[in-house]
């Protein structure tokens, strides 16, 4: 996507939304460059200024530093237009319980009709998209969808797809926070 930064309305009242001169931009092909543009966001009711409301100096320094950074530039791959439409009939969210041989078992929860009780499925590993195979492990979460796929030329196929959720990894901060909470729980309940 191409963005003409010269057309952006300057907002001199807020250092958070500094106009970026074209000369500051790296020289990428237009088709592969997107600038995260504030104008595409919903218009806020009011603009935050560091002086409009009292705020801690640490936060103010952080905001100013953020405002002075150059806008983030992301190189995106070219995305071809979708060559099919998908009509979803049924979807579950599953948690892998066990992986044995060429199959895995999972507890699945109906996202289409949440009134249904939890169910259990044994599925062949072959049903998993090759890209997702490294994610297949006990505790992994996936979505199993059943529906009709209609191609551009009008061909309709009934399909079942299993896609695994890309979960975030534990960060040092996550682990520290968890350990602190665990210590507090142990002190309170582990007597």
């Amino acid at each position: 996507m191409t963005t003409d930064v010269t057309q952006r309305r300057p907002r001199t009242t807020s250092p958070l939304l500094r106009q970026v001169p074209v000369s500051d931009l790296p020289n990428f092909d237009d088709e592969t460059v997107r600038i995260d543009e504030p104008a595409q966001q919903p218009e806020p009711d009011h603009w935050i200024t560091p002086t409009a409301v009292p705020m801690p100096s640490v936060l103010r320094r952080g905001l100013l530093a953020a405002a002075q950074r150059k806008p983030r530039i992301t190189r995106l791959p070219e995305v071809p237009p979708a060559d099919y439409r998908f009509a979803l009939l049924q979807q579950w969210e599953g948690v892998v319980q066990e992986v044995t041989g060429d199959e895995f078992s999972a507890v699945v929860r109906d996202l289409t009709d949440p009134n249904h009780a939890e169910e259990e499925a044994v599925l062949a590993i072959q049903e998993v998209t090759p890209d997702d195979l490294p994610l297949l492990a006990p505790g992994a979460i996936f979505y199993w969808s059943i529906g009709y796929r209609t191609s551009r030329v009008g061909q309709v196929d009934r399909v079942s797809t299993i896609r695994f959720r890309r979960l975030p990894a534990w960060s040092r901060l996550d682990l520290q926070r968890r350990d602190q909470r665990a210590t507090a729980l142990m002190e309170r309940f582990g007597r």
Partner: protein
Amino acid sequence: LTPLVTTGIPAADELEISLFGPGLGECIVVHLGGGEWMVVDSCVDESTREPVALEYLSKLGMDMGRAVRLVVVTHWHDDHMLGAARLVDASANALFVCSAALRTPEFFKLVAEDQDLALANSKTSGISEFARVLNSLGNRNDQSSPEWASASRRLFFRPASDVAPECEVFALSPSSSSITAAFGALASLVPSIVGTPKRALVSPEPNQTAVVLHVRLGARCALLGADLETGQHPKRGWLAIINDGNRPQHPAHVYKVAHHGSRNADHPGIWRDLLAEKPIAVLTPFFRGRVSLPGRTDVERIKEKAIVLYSAAQVRSPPPARRMKTVERTIRETARSFRTRAGRMGQVRVRLSPTTQDISVFNAALQL
């Protein structure tokens, strides 16, 4: 002689063991005599989404706050935990008991981690429920904390009175050796390396730290086997109980069969040393993946040793929910096995007075 009571509330001197099971999960409601009750584990009735013990005791007209003296969670697997927090909430004066194997920083890390994760829409894991139980205990005014059960620890005692005979409840497990081994097993479940992907927690096997209970009301006794498994180690699992000289020596007349009747939770010493000859056996079924318990050989094995064997629910897996034909056809073509986890709730009720016994089954329960 005390008249046999088959309906309504049990007599003050009657030991009642009511086993509930919907095909996944179990709950045991025990009358300790004198209008006092114990609830062991918890499961939820899918039709009402209520903890089954809460429903049952409410139907009997019990005041949960006064009548329930103990709420025991034998282990933290989801099929034994669902609804436990609501039970603890309602049983405001009950002692909450769980396995001493969980009294470790590693287990509390799992609880703390669960609060952080919120990974799946399905928040029905045992560890999530355990976190809610701790929250309920934390909300009590008396700074409650769990009672940590271990081998030969007496959890409840009431002396004999004009109203009811003497009653005591002992934990028979986990043994010290099982607790030590469990610490290492729990540590292996706790992510400790930065960059490890976040995943939901899946209950580990085998289970050698569950809380087995021995209940005695006067001369009537019951052995509640939880999901404790046996193994080769003489100081762990069932072998530790069988070899423990400090455990109560009264043989039990009712046996809640351990781990849904599986062979790896059985041992000749259980029948020889812990149970009366030809006891009443009750169990709940279990289905996971390709595992269905009890199998046909399990039923035959148990029936050889018990006078009768009852199951709280059908021993075949319940069918999945009905959906549009296209979806059902695709499920059949895609999944090697697909079924509902829990079926219809059933109840096996055993009431033992000093001189009589009565066994009744309700809803999906049946004699095997």
